[in-house]
């Protein structure tokens, strides 16, 4: 029989796979339940030094926002997914109630998680947006748009990652001529995981707005920072701050806005 004395190898334990320290590992097959539906709820308080995003006569104000959403996503083939979502937001200002509004958005999308291109996510969507005020009584805007986008998450290491996204949004219909427009955007976000449930994000978004029916063109820069705490995988508490600079070919629409605030988000799959 083979000897397995501890004294082998100058007093070190000899190599062996001798006993059941580790225990038996019975392999389990994962057949996760399909949970195509999702629900989300988000509440936040934001302070802004320019609540109306205007070039002059800026007013500070607090805004309370509440947003609820429902979504459905299903794999349709290979790495293709169908996604349908609808959300309703309600935004209220403490001092300037004239700015209060509600926004409803419905979207149908096709997603392609493309393994041949570094798992880039390609998105094509049709969206409907309706903005109201006066407690949903008055319609301010109704638009239908077509959208294309691509985004990629680049993991640098377990703590650092970068997300890059490109997007285009073309209004197909819009009942307000002044905002009948196309958007082209670039997002770059850097995320640092301080701990498993605590992260810091820094982001920059550049958006070009090209208005169709009026001679207007804007370039909007937004930089922001967010600290996010995720104590449960369905709950997120965050604090955020941002600075927005809009350069328009019409000076009237130039503005600078600084915002900061806190929020609580919850999401659920079922």
């Amino acid at each position, binding site marked *: *029989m*083979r*000897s*397995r*004395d*501890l004294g082998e190898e100058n*007093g*070190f*334990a*000899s*190599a*062996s*796979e*001798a*006993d*059941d*320290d*580790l*225990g*038996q*590992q*019975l*392999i*389990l*097959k*994962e*057949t*996760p*339940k399909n949970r195509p539906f999702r629900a989300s709820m988000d509440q936040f308080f934001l302070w802004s030094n320019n609540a109306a995003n205007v070039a002059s006569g800026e007013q500070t104000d607090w805004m309370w926002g509440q947003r609820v959403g429902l979504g459905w996503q299903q794999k349709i083939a290979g790495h293709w997914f169908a996604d349908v979502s609808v959300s309703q937001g309600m935004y209220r200002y403490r001092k300037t109630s004239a700015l209060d509004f509600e926004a409803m958005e419905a979207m149908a999308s096709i997603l392609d998680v493309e393994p041949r291109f570094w798992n880039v996510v390609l998105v094509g969507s049709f969206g409907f947006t309706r903005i109201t005020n006066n407690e949903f009584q008055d319609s301010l805007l109704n638009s239908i748009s077509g959208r294309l986008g691509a985004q990629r998450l*680049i*993991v*640098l*290491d*377990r703590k650092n990652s970068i997300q890059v996204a490109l997007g285009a949004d073309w209004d197909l219909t819009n009942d307000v001529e002044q905002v009948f427009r196309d958007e082209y955007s670039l997002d770059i976000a850097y995320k640092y995981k*301080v*701990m*498993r449930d605590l992260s810091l994000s820094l982001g920059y978004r550049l958006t070009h707005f090209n208005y169709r029916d009026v001679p207007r063109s804007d370039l909007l820069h937004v930089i922001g920072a967010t600290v996010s705490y995720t104590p449960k995988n369905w709950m997120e508490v965050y604090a955020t701050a941002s600075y927005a600079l809009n350069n328009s070919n019409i000076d009237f629409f130039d503005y600078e806005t600084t915002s900061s605030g806190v929020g609580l988000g919850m999401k659920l799959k079922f």
Partner: protein
Amino acid sequence: MKRLLLLSALAFPALLPAAALKEAEVTRIINDVRLVPAQQTPSAAKVGDKISGQTALATGAQSRAELRFPDQTLTRLGSNSLFRMDAKSRDLNLEKGVMLLQVPKQLGGATVRTAAITAAVTGTTVMMEYDPDGFVKIIVLEGEVDVYLNERRSELRTISAGDMLITKPNATSLPQPVQVDLQRLRRTSKLLSSKDFSALGNEKQLSDALEQQNKKKQKGELLETAYLLQGRGTSVTLSSEARLELLNQLTPEQRRQFEFIPGTTQVDGTAQIDTRGIISANNNSLSPGIITALGSPFTPSEDGTFSEFVYGVTPPRFTAFDQDFSDFGDWSLFKFDELYIAGTPQINSTSGPRNLIFAGRFDVTLSTTTLPDFPSAAATGVLDLDSALDAIAITSFLGDVTVAPGFLINGSDQSIFLSSQAGTGNVAINGPAGVSGSTIAVPYGKLYVYADNEARISNQASIKVDQIRVQSVRDIKLDQADVKARSLIEMIAQNGISIQNSSSLRALANTESPSIFLEAQGAQGDISIMQSQLAGESIRARTIGVDGRLILGNTSIDADQLVHLYAQGTNGQIQFTGNVSLDSPQTVLAAKKVTIDNGVNVTIQQPGGLDVFTDVPQFNTGGFGNFVDGASTPLTFTPGDNLHPFDSPSKPAF
């Protein structure tokens, strides 16, 4: 040597002093654990020892240790593992083996690194196995672990409770983890054994992880597969359940082809047996780790004789053995090259037969000590048959079946078969009995001994059963044996029987008709009863060989009904070589020649019941000893009254 590094990686240094992982205290030692200071001779570790600097902790076979750091980070080492600290770099190094690492949730964590792979452990309980020449295995018991490649840190996987990830130390990409059954892992892992260790700190998190996995199993989101890793290593085998399912599909002919488990296998308290046909044992000389093997159902009425089915021997060796076997119906058979029984295995017979066969090709030994290669705390030296079994058969083909001194087979009404099935094998039941006072104690059960060479009960072995039947192809030898039976002591030797040296055979019960039956069948087969004591309701002893002799000396035989001592061969002889006491209402001696050596008295306590059938009476006459009564007065023999010709028709049947 490649090393597995555990680097202190603290997200919040203020929460965890830099020195916290520089020193650990040994809090538990099991078996062989040694301190290995750098450049110094290893020494035995003890609880309370501090590990720091360059000191390593090494564990031997079947050994384990626990280390606790000041911040309550806990490490348990499995057997044959080497754990080293390096105070200069504040690294903790697992150089090889198995470890469990638990980092309290509120602390920053630790980082486990190999040459190519890093696992970041934060608020997690994780088990790791590292074979420098083979693989890294990481199993998460609770919490999450980030695993990534050192050279490509973007190659990252976050694995969660229940996940197991196995990869090579020099991997260039990480595989997907798989889920393993946490309940089974916890039940079978010695590093998680409540018998060996105190409770882990993160018990609630461990329980939560277990509960969540169980919920997924109940919902059908996790399904048990047939694939199992028995312990260390990466070899995947079929699970017991899958094997049993396959077993049910085998034909009797296929079951007959089952191989013997190779090498020497030790069965002790750590072995698990499901009598539906599967055994797992920790110790086998040829298979490191847990061995799992299939057994075979054996149904005598369908499968034929035992010796043919198990050993391929025809014609059957013991017809009585097969008859006794068939009385029990279905058996569960396990075959070993060589078997060492050091304790009671964990037997599950709820769904399988309640009759178990351990069949060895070579020696089978029941011992109070483990084999030197298999030190095990589970070696109790007791084979306890209660509750799980109705019968057990322990057999050998080419070797001996030996019950070693101090071993106890314990039960209530079970039947025990001990058998050597080939011409070279003996069955030996050795005393002295252990602290229990018994060697085999099954007061309402039966002991069957079938030896293809000799059957020996010796050295103060103590047997307490309802019935004992011993058959031997050669001799039966009792030497300092103490045999008590409630109803029957039967010994049949194809050669001779020797009962000597303060042996005691007692068949005594209040309600039965207990008897002792001795038969020597060899042509020169003798029954020799020297310095011994026989007691029972009826006692019969005979030789049937032509020259067979009954030789008695310094012995007392006490029977409530009758004593028959017959030497039935044509040249048979009863010879008293020392003083003997015979006490029975009916005492019949029958032999061609009956001799009492000169100077020897054979005391007949009830002279009126004595009849001697012989043609050559060599007693109560000049030059020979005497039959005497209780007062030592020589008896008077009158032909036709108490002395008869050997072949007299009035001789009672044996």
